[in-house]
């Protein structure tokens, strides 16, 4: 068959694609109409959007990186900033306590290296882009906190970032250290999106002087990543197991359901605890290299099977519907792979490790696989007839098969990438490079979460299985896999979507709970549960260290739960008209 022969058919499939797109648009509009009836649901959606935006733009919204530790910042002058806990909107926020070692200054002075006399102390914190400006000099103390005469130190008039230390102080050998207390201003520490005059720490600082607000902003990334990763993986595992259970029934069903019973018999959190303990000794999570080929191979197998099937029974169904589930599989696998990649920033940073490059090429291959699957005319088009016009056709953007050449190109590049990059891969793919405790709780939550989905999807499958169109598919001899993926699952996704959304919230809650116990995030990490548990040491006096991270957890969870509740109304058959 040549390219020209297929023109009519292609026009037909293009029309069908347009039709299904129109249908999708209509469905979306109808769903949105139902959704926006509920004020709470709309609020939930806004909450989810806002927290997602915050996590994406955390770098711009925060005033400092969550890993910054004031105790580590020392400049050439060997000045220590004493980290201070500060309440929200308190004066402490822009007051700095700075230790100056006079003995060090004297030694330098004697060697004539860095210091001038009278000695100048610079306050040039390398983390900030601009040098902070001292606005008010409050007090001078000795190392025991006894106030000294404040004229011993003077602020330089031409440059408000320097102090001049008087000769009197330098010559006084009984003093080894002094402490300067002053108020400062720093443009880099001002929240640009707040009006002037609000440039103090709005959520306070912790005992290491770190801005809590910045930590919470960055914490949203951790929580959302965990929520999405765990929910996606649980959905996939639960769907596979549940549909097997529901579709095949009988003994398989009985065994699977008894296994879920066992999982339900132990409270989820205790099960997750036990599982985290069992994972404790594992440092990295690797898979053999051949595994990298498994997923695309799997996709191709299904594809070729369906083409073979088509040649036996042509014209059973037509292009768009038939391929929809496959596209869903590809998109879902892509999402999983990307979810495993974590936030995009990390993804690109980790790109030097060979494991991640293989992973990236795997993603590439999956895209290729997706294009393969979309292009059911691949086999027909392996022909040298009309290569020229075909190439031209493929560059025509109005042609639905334009990806033909792109596909070849992408396959070519992806294969090369895979084989060059995997050269030093030690024959293993590192799926999880740094298998830290955060990963362990994620795996534990997936492990404890799938039975819920398995039961849900089993019920759905049992329900859909009895419908006429499944009966019809079976009567024409369609294989089980085909019936499952093309007829049953597309009709059973609605409650799954609701459960997925609610599960993201639930996962964020459980993960923060595990972090709170001390099993999740590493100490000092910007994870909400960890922040609450860090703040516990200062509770109830410095309650803000607990209040705000917890509010963040509650806000996000509430958002996802309201969203899920709204979606439940949309997919509720009672609301269908």
């Amino acid at each position, binding site marked *: 068959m040549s390219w020209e022969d297929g023109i009519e058919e292609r026009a037909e499939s293009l029309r069908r694609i347009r039709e299904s797109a129109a249908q999708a648009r209509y469905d979306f509009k109808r769903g949105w109409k139902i959704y926006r009836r509920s*004020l*709470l649901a709309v609020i939930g959606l806004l909450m989810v959007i806002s927290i997602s935006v915050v996590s994406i733009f955390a770098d711009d919204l925060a005033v400092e990186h969550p890993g910054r530790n004031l105790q580590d910042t020392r400049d050439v002058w060997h000045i220590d900033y004493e980290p201070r806990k500060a309440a929200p909107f308190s004066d402490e926020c822009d007051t700095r306590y700075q230790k100056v070692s006079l003995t060090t200054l004297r030694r330098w002075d004697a060697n004539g290296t860095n210091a001038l006399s009278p000695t100048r102390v610079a306050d040039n914190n390398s983390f900030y882009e601009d040098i902070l400006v001292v606005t008010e000099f409050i007090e001078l103390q000795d190392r025991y906190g006894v106030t000294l005469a404040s004229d011993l130190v003077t602020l330089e008039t031409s440059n408000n970032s320097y102090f001049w230390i008087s000769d009197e102080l330098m010559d006084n050998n009984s003093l080894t250290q002094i402490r300067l207390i002053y108020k400062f201003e720093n443009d880099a520490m001002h929240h640009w999106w707040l009006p002037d005059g609000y440039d103090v720490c709005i959520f306070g600082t912790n005992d290491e002087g770190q801005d809590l607000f910045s930590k919470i902003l960055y914490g949203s990334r951790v929580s959302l990543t965990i929520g999405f990763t765990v929910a996606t993986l649980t959905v996939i595992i639960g769907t596979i197991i549940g549909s097997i259970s529901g579709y095949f029934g009988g003994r398989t069903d009985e065994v699977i359901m*008894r*296994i879920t*019973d*066992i999982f*339900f*018999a*132990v*409270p*989820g*959190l*205790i*099960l997750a*605890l*036990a*599982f*985290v*303990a*069992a*994972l*404790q*000794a594992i440092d990295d999570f690797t898979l053999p290299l051949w595994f990298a080929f498994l997923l695309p191979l799997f996709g191709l197998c299904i594809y070729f099977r369906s083409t073979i099937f088509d040649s036996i029974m042509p014209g059973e169904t037509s292009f768009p519907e038939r391929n929809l589930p496959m596209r869903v599989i590809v998109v879902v696998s892509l999402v999983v792979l990307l979810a495993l990649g974590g936030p995009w920033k990390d993804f690109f940073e980790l790109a030097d490790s060979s494991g991640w490059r293989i992973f990236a090429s795997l993603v590439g291959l999956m895209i290729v696989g997706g294009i393969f699957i979309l292009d059911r005319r691949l086999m027909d088009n392996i022909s040298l007839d009309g290569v020229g016009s075909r190439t031209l056709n493929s560059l025509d953007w109005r042609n639905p098969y334009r990806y033909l050449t792109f596909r070849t190109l992408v396959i070519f590049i992806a294969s090369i990438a895979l084989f060059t990059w995997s050269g030093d891969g030690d024959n293993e793919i590192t799926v999880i490079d740094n298998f830290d405790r955060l990963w362990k709780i994620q795996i534990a939550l997936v492990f404890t979460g799938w039975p819920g989905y398995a039961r849900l999807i089993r019920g759905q499958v049992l329900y859909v299985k009895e419908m006429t169109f499944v009966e019809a598919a079976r009567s024409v001899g369609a294989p089980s896999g085909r019936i499952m993926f093309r007829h049953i699952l597309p009709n059973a996704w609605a409650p799954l979507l609701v459960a997925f959304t609610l599960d993201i*919230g639930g996962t964020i*809650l459980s993960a*923060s*709970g595990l972090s*709170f*116990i*001390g*099993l999740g995030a590493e100490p000092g990490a910007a994870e909400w*549960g960890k922040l*609450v*548990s860090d703040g*516990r040491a200062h*509770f*109830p*006096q410095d*309650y803000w260290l*607990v*209040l705000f*991270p*917890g509010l963040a*957890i*509650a806000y996000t*969870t*509430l958002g996802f*739960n*309201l969203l899920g*509740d709204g979606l439940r109304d949309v997919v509720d058959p009672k609301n269908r008209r």
Partner: protein
Amino acid sequence: MKTSEFIVRRILLLIPVMIGVTVFTFAIAQIIPADPAAILCGERCGLVDPVTGKTMLELQRERLGLDEPVIEQFRLYLTNLAEGDWGESTTYNRPTSDVVRDAAPVTLEMALFALLMAYPIGITLGILSAVWQDQVFDHISRFLAIAFVSLPIFWLAMMLQLVFGTGPDVGGICDPIFGTEGGCFPIYGRHDAALTYPDRSSSLCDTAITGIACYPSWYPSGGTGFHLVDSWFVTDEALDNINPEYASNYKLFDDTLVHLILPSFTLGIASAGSLLRYMRASLLEVMNEDYVRTARAKGLSESRVIIVHACRNALVPILTILGFSIGGAIGGAVLTESIFAFYGMGNVAVDAIINLDYSVLMGVTLITAIIFLMSNLIVDILYGVVDPRVRLE
């Protein structure tokens, strides 16, 4: 099916699940990266026993049966469990069964009391919400239902401590309103720090040393562990020997109750949220039934229709959640216990994980599973009794 037949069937169905749970706990112990033999012999592991010519480590392994094949080890584990030998805790240096027996009532008491608080709140709000469907109250309470489920329990616990358990200088609200000092409720422990409760863990009740019987002879020795119950049975003799401030049954009970309110309320909130939703949905469904319409047609007052005719039937499905909420409350206890310094199963489990005390971990997992399955069994049976249709399936 007769009720007795139904009950027997339910119990038989539990057996495979119970075996599955033991397989599960056993598997965890196999994967856990701690060698119990090495922990038990400690520094003496390298020493060689002159009689057998084996090292202490090998002897310990032999004693624990670790040199046997896995199947044999599992058989040994099951037999030991059946005989009441749950292994030896390496952190507490006590039999695991004792550790679990001391910890379980603490958590259970907290969880049951939590449900006792959650059910009235959840059901009342649910009924009102259904009665005033789509009115302002309904919207508020539906929001509350979702919000209750969304609150991180450990955070809620600390916020309640802050608001109800501290003085006004920190952020508490109680003192100006109720004239208390340092908040309405104590925030740590099961009892006042000045009181050593006369139970198994206190030396007071060791009759061999003190000659005092803390509980009547017919009562479990050392008490049941449920202090709300135990406090009423403490003998006068024992009461004389504790802090005079608490030297009466009522005062002991009161002290337990006051310490239990905040933790239980925290645990109960989430259950109340889900109960509210279920109650609302269930009642709305029942309200459309024919018999409700009949009741209305008879001219009964609306309140009578709702309370007598609708609620009675709407409450039946609510029973199902009871079993699950006990499980949920025990899970939540893991997080709240450490905050309120209750030494229940949650605290024990967390300690076990930090110290890799695998036998305690297995014990806690097993006992929570048993509690959960038992409560579900009871709920199932109750359900079968209340709603005869269930038995027909």
